């Protein structure tokens, strides 16, 4: 079987495998889920290692295609087409690692385990399937396949009195976003007249025969806002902190860490290469809106009294940097954005994993009730501190590399926004992260936490894996950037000429952004 297919089919098959297991054999259910995600993770790592050696077809490696639905009468074919390049490689690998970590941390679930693990595995399979698919039909289908379990899991296994409201809100927003994006995708399909959903074919077509500027200007914002809502673009972000605060740990980890990246991936993979003129028109708006994430959500995070809401808002703020990198349309900025997508995935999983554990142990995430936990919980405390430090852009972690590249890459196109973003990354991020450390981990500990026990091995393994991943990214960024760079260069170059331009090597003194193509932000 094709390696890429195996990565997402193993969890889906495991979901089927769990069905006949009696619900009383809980360890069996859990074992199947753990094995499946572990195998998927190993396959993901193998993919990463073998990536450079694989031959590329149309720029994609491990390319595999077979017809799935063929309707000769109307000439429509939907193909099963998978492949990876530098853009989605890291996302797939990160996804498999987060999936394994999330499954490990699912030990907290104590009711309807069977249904839970089935849904979890469907969600994982859907996420990974979406990121390897090169056919828009499957891309969208797998995304929905992952999204639906998300809603159900929050509704059933979620916590807090407001979880129904949270479920309602997240479902409403994400369905709306997906619907708007769908409208855009359908219009894209109609515009091409190719009668195929194949991403490679469509991209090639639109680069050879650019779509009319008026259509681009209309369709691009549909995708931008549709995908944007899925990634909590300001001001459509409020679902995220609420949703994650009430979600079960694994769901929050998987959605915030991996599934959410789908919108960004769609923007980069579909919207920008197919509609460069639309992008030129609208990316300035995106850059302005992302300031809402970077600055505004950072300020909001400073005020939160609940640890999960603080983390949720900071996660939304970090997404703003990814938007900024994409909006810069420079080689450095977009590469940084891709790096940051991966780092953000690890970090979101790590922070939600730790805070979820804390909530399960203490029954609360209210910051004021904590304090001094570092002494009682040396392991969890230390790693929470590491996560907070990674979150405020400390060098040594992948997030620093990503943010650093985004800032350097977007300077040319959006100097003022970049300046504010530096302030936000270093100072505002520092303020809320250090406040969290101060109030949760440092200081005097309340008597009631005297009986807390530190994490067991099932919690330690995923936490260590995620942290090591972040460190590897931060210390050896070229592991990723060398793989990402060529494919980003192709996208960036295609937006410059509107045609099939070859990536031009950029000279250091002439940064990659072509200022007349990218609108300056209006200040």
């Amino acid at each position: 079987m094709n390696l890429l297919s195996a990565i997402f089919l193993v969890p889906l098959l495991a979901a089927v495998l769990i069905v006949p297991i009696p619900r009383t054999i809980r360890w069996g259910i859990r074992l199947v889920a753990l094995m499946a995600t572990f195998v998927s993770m190993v396959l993901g790592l193998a993919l990463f290692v073998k990536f450079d050696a694989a031959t590329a077809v149309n720029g994609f490696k491990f390319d595999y295609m077979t017809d799935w639905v063929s309707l000769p009468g109307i000439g429509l074919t939907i193909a099963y087409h998978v492949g990876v390049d530098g853009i989605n490689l890291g996302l797939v690998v990160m996804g498999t690692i987060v999936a394994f970590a999330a499954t490990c941390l699912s030990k907290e679930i104590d009711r309807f385990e069977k249904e839970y693990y089935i849904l979890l595995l469907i969600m994982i399979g859907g996420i990974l399937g979406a990121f390897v698919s090169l056919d828009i039909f499957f891309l969208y289908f797998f995304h929905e396949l992952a999204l639906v379990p998300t809603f159900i899991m929050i509704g059933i296994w979620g916590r807090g009195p407001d979880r129904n409201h949270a479920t309602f809100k997240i479902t409403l927003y994400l369905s709306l976003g997906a619907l708007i994006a769908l409208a855009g995708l359908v219009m894209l399909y109609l515009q091409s007249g190719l009668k195929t959903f194949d991403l490679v074919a469509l991209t090639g077509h639109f680069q050879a025969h650019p779509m009319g500027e008026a259509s681009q200007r209309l369709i691009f914002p549909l995708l931008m806002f549709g995908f944007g809502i899925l990634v909590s673009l300001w001001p459509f972000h409020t679902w995220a902190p609420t949703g994650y605060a009430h979600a079960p740990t694994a769901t929050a980890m998987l959605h915030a860490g991996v599934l959410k990246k789908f919108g960004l991936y769609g923007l980069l993979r579909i919207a920008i290469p197919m509609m460069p003129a639309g992008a030129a028109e609208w990316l300035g708006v995106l850059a302005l809106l992302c300031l809402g994430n970077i600055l505004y959500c950072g300020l909001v995070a400073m005020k939160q009294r609940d640890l999960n809401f603080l983390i949720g808002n900071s996660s939304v703020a970090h997404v703003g940097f990814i938007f900024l990198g994409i909006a810069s349309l420079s080689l450095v900025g977009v590469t940084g954005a891709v790096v940051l997508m991966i780092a953000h995935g690890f970090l979101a999983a790590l922070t939600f994993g730790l805070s979820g554990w804390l909530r399960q142990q203490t029954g609360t995430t209210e910051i004021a009730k904590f304090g001094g936990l570092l002494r009682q919980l040396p392991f969890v405390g230390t790693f929470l501190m590491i996560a907070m430090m990674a979150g405020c852009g400390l060098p040594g972690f992948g997030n620093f590399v990503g943010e650093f590249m985004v800032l350097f890459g977007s300077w040319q196109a959006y100097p003022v926004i970049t300046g504010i973003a530096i302030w936000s990354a270093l100072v505002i991020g520092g303020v809320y992260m250090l406040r969290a450390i101060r109030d949760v981990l440092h200081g005097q500990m309340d008597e009631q936490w005297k009986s807390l026990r530190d994490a067991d091995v099932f919690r330690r393994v995923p936490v260590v894996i995620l942290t090591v991943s972040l460190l590897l990214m931060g210390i050896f960024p070229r592991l990723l950037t060398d793989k990402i760079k060529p494919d980003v260069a192709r996208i960036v170059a295609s937006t410059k000429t509107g045609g099939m331009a070859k990536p031009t090597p950029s000279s250091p003194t002439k940064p990659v952004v072509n200022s007349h193509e990218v609108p300056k932000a209006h200040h």
Partner: protein
Amino acid sequence: MQPTHIAEYLAPIILFLPLAAAVVIALFVRDDDEQSAQFSIGSVGLAFVASVTLFLLGGGRHEIGATWLDVGGLQVSFGLLIDDLSLLMLMIVTGVGLLVQIFSKGYMKGDPGYSRYFAFLSLFTFSMLGIVLADNLVMMFVFWELVGLSSYLLISFWFHKPSAADAGKKAFLTNRVGDFGFLFGILLVWAATGTLNIGELATKLAVDPHLLGAGATCAGLLLFCGAIGKSAQFPLHVWLPDAMEGPTPVSALIHAATMVAAGVYMLCRLFFLLTPDALEVIAVIGAVTSFLAALMAFQQNDIKRILAYSTLSQLGYMVMAVGIGSPNAAMYHLTTHAFFKAMLFLGAGSVIHALHHEQDIWKMGGLKSRLPGTYRTFWIGTMALCGVWPFAGFFSKDAILSSALGNGAYCAFLIGTLVAAMTAFYMTRLVLVAFGGVPRGDGVFGCHESPSVMTRPLWLLAIPSVIAGFWGIDVYLAETLPGGHGHASTWYEAMFAPINHSPLAAMFGLLAVAFGHAFARRLYANAVSDPLPLSAGLLAKIMRDRFYFDEIYAFLIRISQGALSTVADWFDRWIIAGLFVRGVSGFTDLFGRALRMLQTGNLQTYAFWLAAGIVVILFLTLPGAKGAGH
């Protein structure tokens, strides 16, 4: 790049030894106090030996590195640069670090976080060596941040104490404000020149001095912001006094000798980037800091805080030296200051240790006879700090004063002389009150001298505090940094060089010391309480309350960033999540109801709706596809 010269082999070893120690302690021996200390001290000791070896093998400029990041126009290497400047700094950091760690072995005995302490110290040493060796701006920034982290960890080492936890947070965040400027400055330099390598930058700027264009001053000043934060210059000086919440050896190593010197070191490294306008601002900031901090030191009663304000003041001195165009003198003073200030802090640590954590000098008194070793070394340190001939501080301070005169910076000269007098005043006060007179606290009676593991490092630091003035540090640096005037060839020539070279500066310096000392002696000899508040009244209170900087900043933050975040939070809660979302949900009420109906928790229903949805989509798109096809 393949290493070819021995320096290129040794530099990475020096850098990574302490990191290795930190990792080993954290992962393997964290339950074994003794081994933790051995690993930490051993690694910094080896690094020191390697640094001295490099120095003895002779200078030369060596660079080694590997590409860390290479995307488009952004090329960053993990590069190490070994030249006279970094070599000097390597020896200071590892040398002082070694002695401080040995001292810590005694000072921290019995602390439950003993291993953690040494792991953090090793992490700090690694980060600091990274700044010293960095050959490009990004690496420097990376280690800059790591130094900020290790300083944070060490200040809030006793994190269960709210004051220590708050102090650590304050230090980190204040530094972050400076780092904002630093990173912005790096960005501007890169955007203008296309390179981040310091050597390359110097070459490019030598070819085309106007390469940085109109933003040159701005870029220089932004980089200087980093130094303002790390070297605790006005107006970001507020974190350093609070940082005294950390263990005293930490104050000696990090908040006196090395980390806070990083800002000055960075300015010397990047001196070629700074325009005359930028230098002028730097000189003013340095002068203001040194003067204000000396004033604030007048009325402090905590032995560590007096030394902290003294450090601020001396750092201001160094920054001022850079500003008047004499980085050579700045580095010179940095070196001598590292020795005697580390020793003074360790001496204070020895006193605090003996008195069971009493830090108020008015509860000391009469320590002269009870802690003889500590007293003598403290006395040497004070002489050096005040700048009494022939102690080391005299020479480096004189280098600054004479270059101020030589460069026509008379204001700087006046402030420098004034600060010299003030330094003599508050240090004399400290020594007289703490060590002289009669015991005023109960703790004094039973106290006895610290163990030799603590007093020996004091003596070892006393040696360079006395003789570092005739080593010819300025001559050694003269090739790398402008501003030096040394041509003395022998040590006894060097001893009298200042007086021969610029008698006016030397005279003024010594007179100032004598004046400050005499004044303090009049007030504080055998005093039982501070007479100054009575005579100076309000002024003394303002000095004691540190000119209300903390209160003013708290207010400013509250009305700016604090208010903004309150508004944002309110807006988020009530407008976006409230009106907006309810509006949307009202608008799509039907949609919402349908969803709620859908949300049955029944898997089959979901599967059904998903499939139905796909069918509907296909149905909708297919006829359209037909139409578009024609």
